[in-house]
């Protein structure tokens, strides 16, 4: 980490930088340590690797040239957006090129009649909605980090957000993706029409963690901004009841625009930080949002209140105005930075489970808190069954870090055991690559590798991420490798 390259590495570095300088301006090729160092990690700071070379192209032609040059020299390439990812998906290759798409910041077209926007990958998620706002439109997926994360990164990870129960994930809101294969060949997936001929390669590239193609242009769907939205905060005396209430809402035929849950340790931490107005006596709170026409929202809020009361809610508070609605959500979105105030470090998990197992898994997490002597506040996308337990620890305490790793591993394996998954929206990256061995068998992993080879036979794009080798999984049974994570951008709202 951070040391000077050995002589052979320096020669390689010079050769690669020179090859890129043949068509890139000086400022677009970084290789000196002080220039490449800022790229050594993404949002998962526990993994660091200074890249051999950083390339900062500004045009698609330059991206293509970079890929061609790297392909000719057989140099690995790792694409990167804003570097806010939480699974180390943009961890640079020490022997390769970090391809930053940060300069691809243009919104190329907003078409209000077609309700689409065509944007470059470095455009921030929230900037799309800002550009669409004058037309009464917005881009629906809203990861909590949306002020900083880029749409290119969202495509790579298939990002969600607090409204995806009703409005879907990135894959449901992207129409078309253009980009380049590892050898520089132009690729075009999807269409401005609702489907494209042949296999659905658009579905395959979304969430592929930068392993199949480098994306340079994205066409997203825009939705009309609902004229009204209100949120109800429901308090529960125990966590299990809150979990059951989520099922009761769905059983009543309601699909709230957002359905989120926080337990008391989480609300207490948040309340001190942003003063969201949460009920601190409740063991858990649910936030359920209704949106649509004003009369529709009124009806749905009434139904929600009835169902939640029947499910045992001890207190209901309905947002009276937009300011209060945003305040309720601000607490939810600030859960991550709030933890940063009460603990030196925190490890965020991203497992997803069937909703009906929520109580059981929460109980399990409670047992793990005792077993490992670590606190673990919980925030969830309850409607989706997507959990974000946050283990609080001190990374400087080696023993505590070890306990955190073991805690997280047990929780993720529990998620798989109850029929869920190790990652709902953050991606596998380098962080959860060993848990992939718990989720998939060799035959499926082998097929993933075959898919990768179809796109990138030389294995140059983001190598070593997302899909473990079979040899690694064979070893996994005997090892226990989990590096704990401390996140960068501690002030950034998350999840």
């Amino acid at each position: 980490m951070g040391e000077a390259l050995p002589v052979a590495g320096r020669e390689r570095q010079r050769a690669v930088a020179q090859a890129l300088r043949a068509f890139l301006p000086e400022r677009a090729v970084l290789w000196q340590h002080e220039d490449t160092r800022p790229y050594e990690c993404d949002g998962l700071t526990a993994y660091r690797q200074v890249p051999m070379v950083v390339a900062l192209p500004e045009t698609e032609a330059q991206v293509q040239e970079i890929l061609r040059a790297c392909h000719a020299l057989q140099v690995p390439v790792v694409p990167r957006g804003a570097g806010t990812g939480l699974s180390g998906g943009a961890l640079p290759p020490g022997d390769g090129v970090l391809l930053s798409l940060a300069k691809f910041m243009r919104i190329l077209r907003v078409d209000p009649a077609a309700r689409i926007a065509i944007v470059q990958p470095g455009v921030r998620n929230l900037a799309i909605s800002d550009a669409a706002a004058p037309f009464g439109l917005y881009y629906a997926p809203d990861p909590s980090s949306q002020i900083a994360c880029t749409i290119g990164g969202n495509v790579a990870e298939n990002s969600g957000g607090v409204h995806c129960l009703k409005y879907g994930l990135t894959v449901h809101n992207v129409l078309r993706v253009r980009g380049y294969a590892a050898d520089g060949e132009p690729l075009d997936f999807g269409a401005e029409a609702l489907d494209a001929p042949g296999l659905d390669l658009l579905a395959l590239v979304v969430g592929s963690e930068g392993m199949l193609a480098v994306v340079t242009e994205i066409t997203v769907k825009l939705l009309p901004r609902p004229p009204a939205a209100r949120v109800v905060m429901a308090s529960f005396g125990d966590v299990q009841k809150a979990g059951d209430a989520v099922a009761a809402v769905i059983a009543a035929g309601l699909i709230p625009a957002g359905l989120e849950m926080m337990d008391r340790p989480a609300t207490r931490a948040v309340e001190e930080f942003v003063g969201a107005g949460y009920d601190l006596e409740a063991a858990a709170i649910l936030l359920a949002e209704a949106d649509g026409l004003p009369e529709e929202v009124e009806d749905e809020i009434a139904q929600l209140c009835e169902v939640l009361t029947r499910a045992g809610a001890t207190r209901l508070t309905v947002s009276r105005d937009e300011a209060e609605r945003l305040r309720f959500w601000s607490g939810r979105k600030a859960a991550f930075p709030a933890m940063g105030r009460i603990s030196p470090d925190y490890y965020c998990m991203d497992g997803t489970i069937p909703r009906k197992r929520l109580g059981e898994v929460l109980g399990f997490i409670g047992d793990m808190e005792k077993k490992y002597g670590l606190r673990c506040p919980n925030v969830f996308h309850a409607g989706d069954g997507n959990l974000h337990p946050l283990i609080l620890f001190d990374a400087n305490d080696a023993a505590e870090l070890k306990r955190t790793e073991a805690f997280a591993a047990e929780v993720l394996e529990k998620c798989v055991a109850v029929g869920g998954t190790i990652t709902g929206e953050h991606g596998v990256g380098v962080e959860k690559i060993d848990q992939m061995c718990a989720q998939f068998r060799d035959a499926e992993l082998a097929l993933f590798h075959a898919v990768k080879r179809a796109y990138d036979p030389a294995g140059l794009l983001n190598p070593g991420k997302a899909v473990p080798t079979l040899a690694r999984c064979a070893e996994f049974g005997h090892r226990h490798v989990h590096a704990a994570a401390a996140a960068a951008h501690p002030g950034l709202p998350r999840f």
Partner: protein
Amino acid sequence: MPERLRERIREAAGRAAPLRLRGGGSKDFYGGAPRGEILDTREHAGIVSYEPTELVVTARCGTPLAELEDALAAHGQMLAFEPPHFGGAATVGGCVAAGLSGPRRAAAGALRDFVLGARLIDGSGRELAFGGQVMKNVAGYDVSRLLAGSLGVLGLIVEVSLKVLPRPAAERTLRLEMPQDKALEALSRWAGAGQPVSASAWRDGELSVRLSGAGRAVQAGAGKLGGEALEDAAAERFWSGIRDHTDPYFAGGAPLWRLSVPATAAPLDLAGAPLVEWGGALRWLRSGAEAATVRAAAARAGGHATLFRGGDKSAGVFAPLAPAIARLHRELKAAFDPAGVFNPGRLYPDF
């Protein structure tokens, strides 16, 4: 049962003998001409699990689609993409393999949007599981969604998990007289204004629009749109006619083209009778026009054309792919089905 299916596939792969994957045969007409020994999926049937509060149903490939939809309806839920049945025999496996969505597609999403997981037998006879039964899952490549619309060329879909949704509390179908260009304009305007339009069909100067959602939203929307309301039973018949192609528009032997274009594309300048769905994004055409002419018009509009039923399939059923995309198709086919056993020629002639 999967063991028997695996055995059959291994055996066929050993002989390099093509297999024609078939459920109820309701979509035999679709795609390239089927060939190979029939592998009947209907024995492997049944709903494996259905949890209404999880919004997920898991069913085996041979399950009749009607049976699945009845089970959902009993709990006030539905397949929101409203898949066509094309007769009573459609199965869940065939439904997913064909990847077709019905009238609600523009509002609710396509079949592929609702696929959460699948079990697949690949060309080596291995049973593989992808995705799962949860709403969000980004572990590994999204292979289960890739299977939607793959026409069985990647393998036998043995089981699939689908997201389901509650049926809307209220629905109303309105009928308005207007020419095609005005209908396209109106549909675009309503969608942009957030009107709860869940289906639309324009043909022959008549636009039918279905509104779905909360009672008061449908009522308010109906007031804004105007037109004449259809009785519920008549509306039901009309939309199933559009979905299953039993509407008189689809009768007769003239070739049926399916053009998928941006919803805002102007009326297409092609000979033959159009029927417009999905707010303008789906244009059916009954026409004996040359394939090249139809495809060129679709491409100019930013979309593509499929020879959906009838006509001369020698010019290809599906729009030709760009060379780079065609190469990926061949490579993926080789990854899933190295011996080329599954449904050869059904999607594209070269694999």
